[in-house]
């Protein structure tokens, strides 16, 4: 009996804690309007994506492989030009990659011939800072990720988690308008991953950067995000845009969080069953339908799936 009551209570609270995102007034930091993208091999990676990311929000793009979340992130970064729709940052169109939208990849991508400190100083100097300021700033961020004793270590001397922390410090030190992260902890073991969640949470709570974080791990999305945008693939689209109302800092084993992850898992499972029926391939099976749908976009030139996008 108490088990049933417990389940009912959990259901009730989960309804309150995971709600559809409400629209907000004011200029969004990052505006994604009717974005669609089709690769040159005619796979529809994205269809009609409409998202607003507001300043200081932590948005997680959650979905299985092939749902287009990495493609969307790369489009936000400017590495992929979407074949339909447009993306703007602070009102200005996104043209190409740049340090105002820092992208952290799944691999740390550190310069192997530079030490930890030099890696950060190098990119800060590229930004235009003078040496003493760059040095000071680099040291501050190395401290922020708890790597002071390894300031002079070379990347091959660091473990996976440590390299990732350096990559994170480097990205944060650049002070981007938006921080984009493409499954950055995917290659790490579970233990290290939970340490990184704590680290990222604590840094974010201090700085309140605008973050867009791509992951396929439901727990991770709920631990880190203010908003979870659940996506599905074939064709890539947004299923639901949900706001997470759990208090911070979040405990990945808390009952409420587990319940919320169950709800999202069911949502994804349902979408998967619907996707089982093969969808129309762009401009082939249902030409009239596609014409009326500007967000789907036309085949664009010679774009190739970005490095690391699961397909």
């Amino acid at each position, binding site marked *: 009996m108490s088990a049933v009551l417990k389940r009912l209570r959990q259901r009730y609270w989960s309804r309150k804690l995971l709600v559809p995102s409400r629209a907000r007034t004011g200029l969004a930091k990052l505006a994604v309007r009717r974005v669609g993208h089709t690769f040159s091999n005619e796979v529809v990676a994205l269809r009609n994506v409409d998202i607003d990311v507001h300043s200081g929000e932590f948005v997680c793009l959650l979905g299985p492989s092939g749902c287009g979340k990495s493609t969307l992130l790369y489009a936000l*970064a400017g*590495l992929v030009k979407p074949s339909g729709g447009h993306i703007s940052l602070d009102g200005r169109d996104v043209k*190409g*990659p*740049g*340090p105002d*939208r*820092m*992208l952290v*990849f799944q*691999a740390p*991508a550190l*310069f*192997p*011939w530079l030490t930890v400190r030099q890696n950060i100083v*190098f*990119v800060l*100097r*590229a*930004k235009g800072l003078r040496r003493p300021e760059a040095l000071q700033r680099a040291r501050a961020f190395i401290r922020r990720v708890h790597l002071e004793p390894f300031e002079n270590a*070379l*990347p*091959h*001397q660091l473990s996976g988690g440590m390299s990732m922390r350096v990559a994170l410090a*480097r990205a944060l030190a*650049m002070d981007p308008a938006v921080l984009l992260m493409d499954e950055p902890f995917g290659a790490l073991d579970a233990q290290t991953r939970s340490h990184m969640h704590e680290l990222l949470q604590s840094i974010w709570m201090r700085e309140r950067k605008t973050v867009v974080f791509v992951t396929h791990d439901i727990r991770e999305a709920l631990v880190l995000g203010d908003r979870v945008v659940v996506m599905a693939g074939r064709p890539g689209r947004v299923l639901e845009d949900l706001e997470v109302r759990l208090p911070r800092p979040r405990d990945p084993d808390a009952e409420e969080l587990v319940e919320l992850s169950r709800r999202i898992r069911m949502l994804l499972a349902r979408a998967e069953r619907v996707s089982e029926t093969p969808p129309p391939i762009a401009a082939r099976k249902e030409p009239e339908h596609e014409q009326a749908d500007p967000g789907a976009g036309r085949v664009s030139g010679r774009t190739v799936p970005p*490095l690391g996008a699961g397909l």
Partner: protein
Amino acid sequence: MDGRLSAAVLRSLSRLAQGYLISATLGIALGMAIARIGWLRSTLRPLVLGLQALPSICWLPLALLWFGLSEKAIIFVVVMGSLLSIAISTEDGVASIDPLLLRASGVLGVRGLRFYVGVLVPGALPGIVTGLKLGWSFAWRALMAGELLFVAGGLGQLLQQGRELLDVAQVMAVMIAIVAVGSVVDQVLFRLFEVRVRRRWGLAEAV
């Protein structure tokens, strides 16, 4: 004997240094250009690969025709002998840079000269060092061949002299000197440098 030997060694080495410096600069520049510029790669790469198969001594007749009986001719032979292998190794070095690193550089806003000098050259350095090592031995061989055929001082000439004077001892002594100089530079200079580069880049095997 000793006075002449050391003078000859110095003469040979100075020619080598001049030729090698020129070919290193041109070779690295050429290699990087081929690696980065698409149309250049499709036109020049087959040419470079083909010419590389030409033994460096075959450049001597051309050099003598163009530059006459002068220092320039020998240096030309040295340059042509090593230029192409340096270019090819440099191109390999650039091609072997992790593409993710190049993409990250774009995202991090590292562009222009800073990108070339700060990312491409260091990134390709293991390949460049291999090329320089190879180029050195080609240059040394080209120089010796050139000096033997075109008598103009240096170790090659001493070798020839020994032959003309039927002095086996001199011939052998000069051969030993040639091997010694080549080995010293190869083992000491390059080995040291190459090991340090590989260690720093994280390419050294764990000992």
